């Protein structure tokens, strides 16, 4: 086996080359990013294996903890959940009744039925490798049809949007990240705003008109104005309204419906308009397990 040993002069030259490379990356961020993305594609295939393995080990440990060691208070929780199920069953039957009557009325009025979005199921295998962004790493990439700017949801509500993809992995920026913004709609008042994350991890609805009658407890859903998400997906509930004198708009704090720390599986919206109809709005089209 050949042993390559750099001489002092060669090492100094290599160091200068590293510095020049860094300067090029720093001064020309966009061309460098395109090049690095292409180079990174095969590396992501290599990285996928240890990350998936680590994620599986983490899941097993968490299952062990939740299944055997943290059972205190489960009985009380069980009773509470049973009560909740009874309440939700009752509410569900009422909503089914309302849905049926809306369907009848829509048919009468010949409304075009909005199609459900097409989705691909994916598993969360990790979180952002830095503290600077709030994001999730998914085990699906371009080879599974996942593209940048696609919306990501769970049955509970909106999670975020895809910002980076490689053939095997993709990165989803959460709606609680300050760099993310989603067009939102207050369900009761029909006022629109922008849902944006804050540096402390909270979520705000910004740019609500001053004359809006928004109240605490109002539900916020996606407005469907910006690509990635269809209209009406739940985002969260308004917990506090901020209205300051002299401001042109009011804003509100939102408690998101999705608990981002506990998300394990997600659905990536590949077609928000749902050109091909699916019987279940949240059923993934992919036959592969997430």
């Amino acid at each position, binding site marked *: 086996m050949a042993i390559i040993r750099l001489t002092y002069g060669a090492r100094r030259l290599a160091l200068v080359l590293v510095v020049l490379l860094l300067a090029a990356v720093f001064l020309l961020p966009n061309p460098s990013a395109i090049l690095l993305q292409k180079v990174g594609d095969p590396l992501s295939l290599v990285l996928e294996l240890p990350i998936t393995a680590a994620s599986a080990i983490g899941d097993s440990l968490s299952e062990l903890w939740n299944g055997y060691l943290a059972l205190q208070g489960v009985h009380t929780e069980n009773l509470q959940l049973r009560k909740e199920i009874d309440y939700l069953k009752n509410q569900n039957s009422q909503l089914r009744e309302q849905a049926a009557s809306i369907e009848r009325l829509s048919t009468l009025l010949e409304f075009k039925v909005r199609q459900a979005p097409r989705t691909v199921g994916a598993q969360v295998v*990790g979180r952002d490798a830095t503290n600077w962004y709030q994001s999730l790493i998914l085990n699906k990439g371009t080879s599974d049809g996942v593209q940048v700017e696609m919306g990501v949801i769970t049955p509970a509500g909106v999670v975020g949007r895809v910002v980076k993809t490689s053939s095997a992995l993709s990165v989803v920026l959460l709606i609680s990240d300050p760099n993310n913004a989603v067009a939102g709609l207050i369900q009761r008042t029909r006022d629109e705003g922008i849902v944006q994350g804050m540096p402390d991890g909270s979520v705000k609805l910004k740019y609500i008109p001053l004359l809006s009658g928004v109240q605490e407890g109002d539900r916020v859903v996606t407005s469907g104005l910006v690509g990635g998400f269809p209209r009406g997906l739940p985002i969260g509930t308004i917990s506090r309204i901020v209205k300051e004198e002299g401001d042109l708009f009011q804003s509100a704090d939102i408690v998101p419906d999705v608990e981002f720390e506990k998300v394990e599986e997600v659905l990536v919206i590949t077609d928000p308009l749902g050109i091909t109809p699916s019987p279940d709005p949240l059923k993934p089209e992919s036959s592969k397990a997430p």
Partner: protein
Amino acid sequence: MKYVIYVGLALCLMPVQSVFLPSLNVGGVRPDLGLIAVCWVGFWFGAYKGAVLGLFLGFAQDLLSAGPFWVNLATKAGAGLAAGFLGRQVTHATPVMMAVGMLLISLASGAAFLMSMGLQNLSELWQVSRFVMIPEAVFNALLSTGLYWLTVEYLPGGRSLAERRISFQ
């Protein structure tokens, strides 16, 4: 051989950083293991090795982060270089010196991240610094100091590594 070690380190550290550490955060902030490893290698084994490891680790970290593709690559390689150059000026390493050095490098790396984020006003800048940059720098400094102490006190050959370093100067 060392390049294989660097790739292996990147493949081991990144899953730990993005899979296990999020569950072990303090106040939502976790240490940057990549930065600590790069500074460690740069400080003990020279700027060139630190920079090369920084390139590998930074690139892997960029693939697993929502930020632009160049930030981790540039900051990690830069941190490796800086640690190497700082290491050459030091004749006797102490825990306090390690803590201050790591704190300064972490803050400089954080400043590069702040620049890349293009924050629009001072209030946002201060909030991100308060919630991310400063806690992470403190966390990195504490962890690397602990690592130094463990290496010198308990690792077989750790003390001799420190002493050999002194004799190199």
